[in-house]
């Protein structure tokens, strides 16, 4: 299977402004992350707030420069591209945001906003050709041609998200990174949009990175899932395997925390404490202070978790844990 877009050892650090008495501090949003998008497949990226999943999405699209490591598209490093080449690449790599309010211009019609990428990337098209494409795409995302003349505020939240998706797709991108594309929507509308994303990706022509905090959404759409914790991939596996038998204790806790119809609460692993700040990532395995497995270990083993960072190992199921579950 061919890797279309991949991160190799990508680290992203931000300088956090210090307080009146604190020195400036460094926030490590991503720490040596390697991740590969296979052509035509959908990869899910899950993690809690602060895990670095949006930063990884932006780094993959070349919107966030890595402090170390590199991003390769069709085996060529983005960093080696000229600004002109990058601009052309932009057409092939698109981003869909969570909040359709924030990503649509309030006073421009839907049609004007959907056509915009074509004006930039396909200036050779005639006006009639562009309009035909807009009409075709609006229909493909479940809107009618009449919607082209409307303003964003005249649409429902679900319709606005369809517009955002149409705009991302109009220049026929190869890769779309969708960052929480359905989390702002009601359940019944969310189902409509998830089905739309399934349709759009089912032909194999589109490679999708679906970023979500919602494991149920990822389960529906993705062939493979990567779990991010404090800027590191802790587990990556084919979706059915990961959900049936998670190997990292964090993945296990994350899955068990999802409330489900018909499943009693008693079997839940409740994690103690909260996600540590990325300003002060714990040593060794970053998850050890909250890890139920660590808590059950004896001292020489615990020391290993505290001091040695586990590598992400194994294929097709990869886990970064010294004492993975099921062993």
């Amino acid at each position, binding site marked *: 299977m061919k890797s279309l877009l991949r991160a190799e050892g990508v680290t992203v650090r931000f300088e956090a402004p210090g307080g009146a008495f604190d020195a400036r501090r460094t926030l490590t949003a991503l720490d040596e992350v390697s991740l590969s998008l296979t052509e035509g497949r959908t990869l899910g990226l899950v993690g809690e*707030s602060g895990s670095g999943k949006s930063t990884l999405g932006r780094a993959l699209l070349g919107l966030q420069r890595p402090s170390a490591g590199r991003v390769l598209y069709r085996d060529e490093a983005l960093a080696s591209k000229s600004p002109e080449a990058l601009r052309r690449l932009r057409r092939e790599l698109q981003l869909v945001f969570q909040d359709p309010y924030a990503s649509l211009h309030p006073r421009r019609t839907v049609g004007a906003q959907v056509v915009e990428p074509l004006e930039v990337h396909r200036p050779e098209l005639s006006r009639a050709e562009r309009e035909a494409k807009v009409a075709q795409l609006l229909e493909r995302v479940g809107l009618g041609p009449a919607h082209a003349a409307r303003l964003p505020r005249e649409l429902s939240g679900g319709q606005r998200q369809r517009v955002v998706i149409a705009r991302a797709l109009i220049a026929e991108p190869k890769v779309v990174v969708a960052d929480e594309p359905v989390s702002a929507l009601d*359940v*019944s*509308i969310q189902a409509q949009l998830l089905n739309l994303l399934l349709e759009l990706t089912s032909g194999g022509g589109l490679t999708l990175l679906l970023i979500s905090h919602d494991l149920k959404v990822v*389960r529906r759409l993705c062939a493979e899932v990567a779990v991010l914790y404090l800027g590191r991939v802790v587990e990556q596996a084919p979706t059915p395997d990961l959900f049936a038998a998670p190997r990292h204790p964090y993945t296990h806790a994350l899955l068990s925390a999802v409330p489900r*119809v018909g499943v009693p609460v008693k079997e839940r692993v*409740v994690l103690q*404490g*909260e996600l540590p700040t990325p300003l002060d990532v714990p040593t060794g395995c970053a998850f050890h202070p909250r890890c139920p497995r660590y808590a059950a270990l004896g001292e020489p083993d615990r020391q290993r978790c505290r001091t040695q960072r586990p590598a992400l190992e194994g294929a097709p199921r990869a886990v970064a844990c010294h004492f993975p579950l099921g062993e």
Partner: protein
Amino acid sequence: MSALLEVTGLTVRFGALAAVEDVTFSVPEGGTVGLVGESGSGKSVTALAVMGLLDGASVEGAVRFQGEALLELPPRRLQALRGRSLAMVFQDPGASLNPAQRVLTQLAEPLRLHLRIPKADAEARAVSLLEAVGVGDAARRAKAYPHELSGGLQQRAMIAMALACGPALLIADEPTTALDVTVQAQVMALLRQVQAERRMGLLLISHDLGLVAESCAELVVLYAGQVVERGPTAEVLRAPRHPYTRGLLASTPTLEGQGRLEEIPGAVPELSAMPKGCRFAERCPQAQAACRAAPVPLDGGVRCLFPLGGGR
């Protein structure tokens, strides 16, 4: 179990438009009732009406809380209740925390005012409340202003504040929607513990059927301002009778399945264009002419002329 909160025939109008119509339910002492619905269902308006927090709306019906008729109470008495035995957590913590006051002050104040606890003790209790809702390094965080905390921390501070005076009833409107699942699990475990210890009643307003399923004995499903189905949660979710409840369940992704989800076509009707008959008819796979002809009454826990599983 005696009813702690009894809401009967609650109707809320904004001008000529009814956002909530004839809503009836009750919360027993120590019990948990889930109010489920999507945007526009009227679930938040119901909560605000119960709390007496709707300005400019006309509210009809009866709300009884610990035997008192809330809708008829003088504002001062209602305010005293709200600080102490009747508490609410909102979805948006930014809107309910005072941006100009440290979290500690905001948490300690109700303890001093309503329970007359000395300042130092109130502050110590405030810190332990923060710890109880899973705020790490609580003593330091308590000294922060709301904007210095993440959304998740603000939300937890608000939950701590709502629980501070030991309310008899907590109305929680999407209390964990902004939180990560692991933190949500912590907060819900805490609420369950408080309920068990103090017999606190909980009205949980949520769009998340999974969350409601695991927390609530009783379930009320709202659609377009009306109760469309009501009953014991396990029963309603195992065998929903209203097509909307069924559609909502079927369109909710699970941790097991892959591929297409069942959809509910269309969207909730606008308040200004409410159909005369069944409000769900436009989106209902089994609607018939009779459904559109006249309003459908709530009968035997379901508002449907042709409920699933027959009967009626």
